[in-house]
């Protein structure tokens, strides 16, 4: 299976199953597409003659023949039309240990962001609640107990706004450090914050103890403040920008992300990414809002052409700045073609519901943060016997690109691993039915990231 596309001046061929990316000239691009559509094997003599005949008015026969030789060579070396022989790995998630946890330390928030999937911190539970340190410690015990031989364990302090419960955060972190020594584990902590309460003391503690910090900001002031506002309606941009700039510098512009959401209100979101870059941030992620189509900020299918143009605008500037020496990292363009994750990880991605779980303030366990508060996906409680619903866990463990019909013919499947399971469940009602709009945007981002690789390899 191959995928070919042209972006700006580049003709690019992705061999889906080997992961090889080739930049080719126009002639070669045409020949590869011809062979692919006709189902011809470049190693067969007949394919060569047919290709020469097909392009006799456009290209010299010797040039076409030479291209066919090169294409045949790549195919012979499993770098074009390689077979997909990975399906035998699809059951590896069964009985996988738990290695990552999203800890909902605060179901309360000091902002009232209009698009908040977390229901402004309440997660559709109707109450604002903080996690006790005791529940957090119980969660750490659970993680260690269920992590098997995995050494690296991850905990993300999430909300609501985690800094509203920072004393508990610290107590849990200190407790986890004790567990590290006792059990030869390494905890990696992340905290996701809107920045309102991020003072020097908290920042110092976070920098000493957490491997990553995610800073929520959407971009330009008018864009950010339209949706990210306080209870009194005032925006938070002026308050958080200097705090975030200081945070990024204090971490040497590494091991953090400024993370934004774009909606139908700012389909020109490339300007927001670039605005964040202009503010001096080097690690940026701006992502599409995820929700049904019923709100006025929801992204719709009709917006896709505009969104695709915007990703192209962004990648062109991304490359230009990189080449100029003033580049920044954009999360979704940072595809590692050589040292990236193994194919086994790529079959099912985040591992939610088996390797990765979320814990609500009251100790209830869900497959991931997006499921929290949805009763049918509750997997158990840290205050019961700690055993997760076996049937539900197995359903998540068995969810992979081979269980999703839409992934079968998709060229991006080894880049997104079948997409966000929560989106599929909560929007489409089935974990095996990926959210179409998200898939379309993912495919475009993959193309842009491969273009960037080619352009930066010059």
């Amino acid at each position: 299976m191959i995928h070919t596309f042209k972006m700006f001046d580049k003709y690019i061929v992705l061999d889906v199953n080997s992961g090889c990316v080739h930049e080719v000239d126009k002639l070669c691009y045409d020949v590869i597409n011809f062979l692919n559509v006709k189902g011809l094997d470049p190693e067969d003599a007949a394919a060569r003659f047919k290709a020469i005949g097909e392009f006799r008015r456009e290209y010299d026969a010797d040039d076409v023949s030479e291209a066919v030789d090169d294409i045949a060579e790549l195919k012979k070396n499993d770098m074009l039309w390689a077979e997909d022989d990975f399906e035998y790995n699809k059951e590896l998630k069964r009985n996988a240990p738990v290695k990552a946890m999203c800890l909902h330390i605060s179901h309360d928030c000091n902002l009232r962001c209009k698009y908040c999937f977390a229901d402004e911190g309440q997660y559709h539970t109707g109450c604002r609640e903080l996690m006790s340190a005791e529940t957090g410690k119980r969660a750490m015990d659970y993680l260690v107990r269920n992590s098997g031989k995995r050494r690296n364990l991850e905990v993300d302090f999430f909300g609501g706004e985690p800094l509203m419960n920072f004393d508990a955060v610290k107590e849990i972190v200190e407790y986890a450090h004790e567990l590290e020594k006792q059990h030869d584990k390494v905890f990696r902590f992340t905290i996701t914050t809107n920045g309102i309460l991020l003072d020097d003391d908290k920042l110092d503690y976070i920098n000493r103890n957490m491997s990553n910090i995610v800073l929520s900001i959407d971009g330009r002031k008018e864009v950010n403040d339209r949706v990210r506002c306080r209870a009194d309606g005032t925006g938070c941009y002026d308050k958080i920008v200097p705090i975030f700039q200081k945070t990024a510098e204090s971490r040497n512009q590494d091991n953090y992300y400024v993370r934004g959401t774009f909606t139908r209100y700012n389909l020109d979101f490339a300007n927001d990414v670039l605005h964040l870059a202009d503010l001096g941030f080097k690690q940026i992620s701006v992502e599409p809002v995820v929700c049904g189509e019923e709100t006025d900020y929801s992204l719709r299918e009709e917006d896709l052409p505009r969104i695709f143009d915007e990703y192209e605008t962004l990648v062109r500037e991304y490359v230009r700045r990189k080449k100029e020496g003033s580049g920044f990292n954009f999360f979704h363009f940072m595809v590692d073609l050589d040292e990236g994750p193994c194919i086994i990880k790529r079959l099912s991605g985040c591992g939610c519901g088996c390797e990765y779980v979320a814990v609500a303030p009251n100790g209830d366990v869900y497959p991931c943060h997006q499921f929290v508060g949805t009763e049918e996906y509750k997997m158990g409680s840290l205050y019961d016997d700690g055993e997760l619903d076996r049937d539900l866990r197995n359903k998540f463990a068995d969810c992979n690109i081979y269980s999703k019909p839409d992934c079968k013919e998709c060229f991006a499947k080894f880049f997104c691993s079948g997409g966000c399971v929560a989106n599929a469940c909560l929007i489409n009602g089935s974990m095996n039915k990926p959210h179409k709009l998200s898939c379309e945007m993912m495919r475009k981002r993959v193309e842009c990231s491969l273009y960037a690789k080619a352009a930066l390899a010059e």
Partner: protein
Amino acid sequence: MKRIKTLNSASLKKSACKGGCGECQTSCQSACKTSCTVANQKCENDER
């Protein structure tokens, strides 16, 4: 190959041999939380 510039090796097949250790970061934990990109995650298997 004057008409083809290959940007990387056929890494996916090779990765199947020693892959699956699970020590790498959970993709959703790093930044996204809503939209998956897995291919930007770093492999942490020293033996690979």
